[in-house]
């Protein structure tokens, strides 16, 4: 069983970090993982994206054309990648920036107003954690407590922002569970 998740958005939206945290939690859970960034000229000002592959066996090709799921943080990313997602996959849509959504009916749409939720939790800067948490809750790919531990580990050097991120995480999970 192999699952591939594409994370896409503007540079600066925490795409690479969110993807890394998910990969890290999956690794701790005992899965094989690969984190493959785009490092082309697109990074400068355009869409940044990266793919996480989670598998129960050794990962062959880390280059994925059709991912299982998509986390789209902005409109260009959604438009560019939504048609690549395999039928039945989860498409996370950052409702704060993407009003339209997608016409596809063979996917599970998870539309989350991450900015509003993050502001309510304390700061818009935790929006990427809201996104990660709600996607993780919906997809059930990793244990949520384990993922929280990975986030704490990542922010260990900046301990004072951990409570904010934990709150944002819980709010993201709640939203996914109730919508």
């Amino acid at each position, binding site marked *: 069983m192999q699952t591939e998740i594409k994370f896409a958005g503007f540079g600066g939206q925490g795409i690479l970090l969110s993807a890394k945290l998910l990969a890290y939690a999956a690794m701790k859970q005992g899965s094989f993982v690969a984190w493959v960034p785009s*490092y082309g000229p697109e990074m400068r000002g355009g869409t940044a994206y990266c793919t996480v592959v989670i598998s129960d066996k050794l990962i062959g*090709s880390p280059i994925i054309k059709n991912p299982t799921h998509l986390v789209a943080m902005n409109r260009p990313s959604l438009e560019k990648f939504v048609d690549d997602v395999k039928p039945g996959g989860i498409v996370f849509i950052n409702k704060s920036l993407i009003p339209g959504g997608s016409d596809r009916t063979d996917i599970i749409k998870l539309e989350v107003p991450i900015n509003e939720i993050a502001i309510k939790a304390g700061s818009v800067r935790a929006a990427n954690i809201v996104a990660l948490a709600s996607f993780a809750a919906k997809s059930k790919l990793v244990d949520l407590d384990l993922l929280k531990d990975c986030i704490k580990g990542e922010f260990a050097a900046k301990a004072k922002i951990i409570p904010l991120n934990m709150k944002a995480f819980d709010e993201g999970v709640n939203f996914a569970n109730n919508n």
Partner: protein
Amino acid sequence: MAKVLMKGNEAIAEAAIRAGCLNYFAYPITPQSEVAEYLVKRLPEEGGVFLQGESEVAVGYMIFGAAGAGERVMTTSSSPGISLMSEAISYIAAAQCPAVFVNIVRGGPGLGGILPSQGDYFQATKGGGHGDYHLLVAPDGVQEAVEMTMQAFTLAEKYRGPVMILGDGLIGQMMEPVEFPDNLKTEPSNKDDWATNGMDTRKSKKRNLVKSLFLDPTELNNNNLALKAKYDQMKREEIQFEAYNTDGDYKVLITSFGTMSRVCRTAIDLLKEEGIEVAMLRPKTVFPFPEQAVFDAATKKSCKSVISIEMNMGQMVEDVERCVKGQRPVEFYGECGGDIPSPEKIIEIIKKMI
């Protein structure tokens, strides 16, 4: 040690430190700059030296100097940078000094692009600079890059010559779980017989001379014979390869190396689900090349043809043809410039072959 999630470039950097390399000289170039970024932080913690040269040409000779003085030393670069270092690599081979070079290959020729490629196979395996010399090794992922980097220092000292890790941009940029095997660390060899490591620290009274200039024809011929003897020994002792799905009655044999071999593995697994048996022979050392293994796998009774799949326009395929000796048709498929042939494309090509 527990597994950690690391980028290939960072993992190579950490592996070098764990292998006892405390000297790193480099000039930045995408897609391998994270190696320097990592080592500029880590080396001072270990009492080591990081120095950024003014160019790759300068770096090449910094490596020569440190290696000649008997220090464990490494540099990392990417294709155009390795071209600039090639002169020094040739000198280092001639002067028989151990040093490790990592080439995180990007698209070429010229400045090319910054995405992954295998376009430097010819350069790495056939010399690259002038004269009769060779280099080795190619990893297929972050874990193997770590192990090969650690082994490279041992190999460089065993053969007193340059060893190259031939990676590509994807191996450098991708994050995978890695472990750093302690057993791959070796103590530095005794270099008193040849290195200019200081008269105070060694017992011998003999002065050592590190040089690559041999004006006397007999002396130069003897030096080349000594190098040839080492390359012959490598061919006997250092060949590494992976045979994948070679037990069954496969009709097609794929040859590929590095990142490309992972994509081929996925294609082979998918074809197997359809009942089509395809095997792969993956050289881990691209020099010395697994000549006999390629010949044996290609000439198995069930095997009708061979295809070399590479991220270039056809380089390793020449070695494959040489090894197959005309016993089977050898085809080639490759993409470059950053595009990597997909499993679906490979499946389509294989189906046309059978």
